[in-house]
């Protein structure tokens, strides 16, 4: 990476264009020191200059743009996003550090796993070589530096339990599976909880309210593994609607012309595409006036997206294979949605009951608005904010929840991999899993924070 052209483009041209553009827009940089630091970081990253990066030159590519924007006097949402990104990078460093110390403190590590192997012990030369390679005798700070350096270089080592595979490869394969499950279940349960919560709060005291609250509390407090066992027993064993567990049915994929992973990545992209269509629908609906037009817009985009997705899957010949994966996905998604919607529903119900008492709801009623408009546009819209907060807080529990769900359904995602790696004392893989689940949650927090900023005009950053 010492190509002078690249250095010129990244460290010279791009920032210069940025500064010129900013001045042209009337937003001159306030503090040129930050720009200089940013440039230096770019330079260090490109030339691998030893004193211009901390752990890894690659890490500079994340740091430099954030520091670059500290040179400008931003305001509002852009300032918030910049600060939040800086916080997240800091949190990431802290998180990786904490993970390192946890594994340092844990009894038994790969030294016991490998070096106690009689075959290695009998051969002192190999034994010493292995010790040197693993850095067993290094002091903790050297270990820490290596740990950080390797992490930010994205070199996580080789897994012991799945030997020849590199940890990055394993994570690249498993992360999408967790992401799919996590996205599908949280979006669906959020929508379900939001909608049900607002309905039962509006018709409070009725039979539906009592029933839904009861069911919600049951799902909220039920012992998760037990509930999942019941689901498996009911739907997979008794009714035989869904497969017991796993990711695919091997017999069906016997002579498949493509890998399951390729199909799955396309499935994940389809899910993201549907999500984007839905969000576009909401944004378009925000510009429309009547409730009917809004509803038509949202459903139009969602159904349009579904049709495009359907055509895509019908045309590319992977349809039947994708269906097999979806078939395996159904039960975990059902389990997660039923477990998570309850909390959202109860929170929504409670905040709705508070909001209904507010004066602006009386105003809306006195204005002569129809009941549904008051409920959806005035009450639910404001009650959405605390729900978002509880949703963000709940993100953290997704990590622990993921381990249980994925284990129960043998869904090979990050959670199950983490569990297996930990029990097998496969330290590199366990560290990789922990760190990347953490990254996932941090990013989800960022998205939720930005959403929150859009939803609540009272928030000023």
């Amino acid at each position: 990476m010492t190509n002078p052209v690249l250095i010129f483009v990244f460290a010279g041209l791009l920032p210069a264009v940025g500064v010129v553009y900013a001045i042209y827009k009337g937003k001159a940089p306030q503090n040129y020191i930050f720009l200089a630091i940013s440039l230096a970081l770019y330079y260090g990253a490109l030339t691998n200059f030893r004193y211009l990066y901390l752990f890894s030159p690659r890490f500079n590519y994340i740091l430099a743009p954030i520091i670059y924007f500290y040179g400008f006097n931003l305001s509002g949402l852009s300032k918030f996003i910049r600060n939040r990104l800086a916080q997240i990078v800091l949190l990431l460093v802290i998180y990786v550090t904490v993970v390192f110390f946890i594994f340092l403190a844990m009894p038994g590590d790969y030294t016991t796993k490998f070096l106690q192997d009689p075959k290695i012990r009998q051969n002192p030369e190999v034994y010493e070589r292995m010790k040197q390679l693993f850095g067993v005798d290094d002091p903790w700070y050297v270990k820490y530096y290596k740990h950080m350096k390797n992490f930010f270089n994205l070199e996580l080592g080789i897994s012991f339990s799945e030997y020849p595979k590199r940890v990055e490869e394993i994570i690249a394969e498993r992360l999408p599976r967790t992401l799919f499950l996590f996205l599908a279940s949280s979006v669906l349960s959020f929508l379900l909880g939001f909608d049900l919560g607002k309905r039962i709060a509006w018709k409070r005291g009725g039979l539906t309210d009592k029933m839904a609250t009861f069911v919600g509390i049951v799902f909220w407090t039920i012992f998760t593994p037990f509930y999942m066992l019941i689901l498996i027993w009911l739907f997979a064993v008794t009714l035989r609607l869904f497969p017991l567990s796993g990711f695919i049915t091997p017999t069906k994929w016997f002579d498949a012309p493509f890998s399951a992973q390729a199909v799955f990545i396309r499935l994940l992209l389809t899910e993201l595409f549907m999500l984007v269509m839905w969000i576009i629908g909401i944004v378009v609906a925000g510009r429309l006036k009547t409730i009917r037009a809004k509803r038509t817009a949202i459903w139009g985009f969602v159904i349009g997206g579904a049709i495009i997705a359907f055509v895509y899957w019908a045309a590319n010949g992977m349809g039947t294979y994708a269906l097999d994966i979806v078939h395996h996905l159904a039960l975990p998604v059902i389990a997660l949605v039923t477990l998570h919607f309850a909390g959202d529903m109860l929170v929504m119900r409670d905040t709705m009951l508070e909001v209904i008492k507010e004066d602006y709801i009386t105003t809306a009623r006195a204005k002569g608005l129809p009941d549904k408009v008051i409920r959806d546009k005035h009450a639910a819209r404001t009650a959405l904010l605390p729900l978002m907060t509880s949703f963000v807080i709940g993100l953290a529990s997704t990590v622990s929840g993921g381990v249980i769900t994925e284990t129960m359904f043998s869904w090979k995602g990050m959670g199950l991999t983490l569990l297996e790696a930990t029990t097998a004392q496969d330290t590199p893989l366990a560290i990789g899993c922990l760190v990347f689940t953490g990254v996932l949650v941090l990013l989800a927090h960022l998205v939720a924070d930005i959403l929150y900023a859009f939803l609540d005009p009272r928030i000023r950053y």
Partner: protein
Amino acid sequence: MIVPVIKVENLKMYYKTKMGYVQAVDGISFELEAGESLGIVGESGCGKTSVSMTLLRTLPENAHFMGGHVWFNDNGKMVDLTQLPEDEMRHYRWRGISMVFQAAMNSLNPVYKVGDQIVEAILNHYPDTPIDQAKAKVAKLFELVTLDPKRMEQYPHQYSGGMKQRAVIALSLACDPKVIIADEPTTALDVIVQDKILRELKKIQKELNMAMIYISHDIAVIAEVSDKIAVMYAGKFVEEADSTTIFKRPMHPYTFLLMNAFPSHVGPKKKLFTIPGEPPNLLNPPKGCRFAPRCPWADNRCREQDPEYVEVEKGHYLACWHPLTEEVRQNELRK
């Protein structure tokens, strides 16, 4: 004969609680013509706000309508608002009767722009209005209440208290209502802003020839803006007359004591009266006249029989067995 814009007959609304019915509005009658204003004055908890909510039918769930009529003049046709189904009632809200709310601070939805909330009211009642036209109208209303029309694009939290109050007034004018109920429109504001807003309200009311109902516990506020004053005590009107009569020649003991219970800024020093006791519990109001337990003039009949609310002079309504005469009033003041 002048047809009133709104005519309320023997209106009754009780709140149902575990202890029984709270008789918050118990047989209230009045009528208002276009351009006229009525002030309803009374202690806290006497049911003033409940009256306004009953007129608009924006009552909480435990409120029970117990009888009476609210006749609303819909272009010459008298409609009984109490008998309308909810769906039709919707069309009379804001277009017929609108309201300036007691708690203007929280009367606007925090997540929508103020201008949009007013536009929403217009579009709701006149769905065919183009949005630009509705916005132009809101801009005009903002100018009427001396707010900068640029503020339409701001959210309620960017407004000061007085500005919010003005915005709420602009909101109440959005659909050219025939009757506006101003429920403690200025309680949350300091005296200077209060005065300004009251003047504006009065000016707008005369300009647009609307009927107006002011509700307040503050007699000074009521006296400043209303043509007629009704005194409310424990869910009932005890006396109603034009403002001067109420101040100069009150006939109900409660009105008399109330009028002389606060010091005047002008004129000679005068005796201040206190009303002994406390307002009755509306769950179980006293038999007979509800003011009897606190009334210095009460006798056995007062405690047994409830006096009728009748017109004693032209435009002067009263519910009392022993109306105060000029002599009694002078004697009391001289004591």
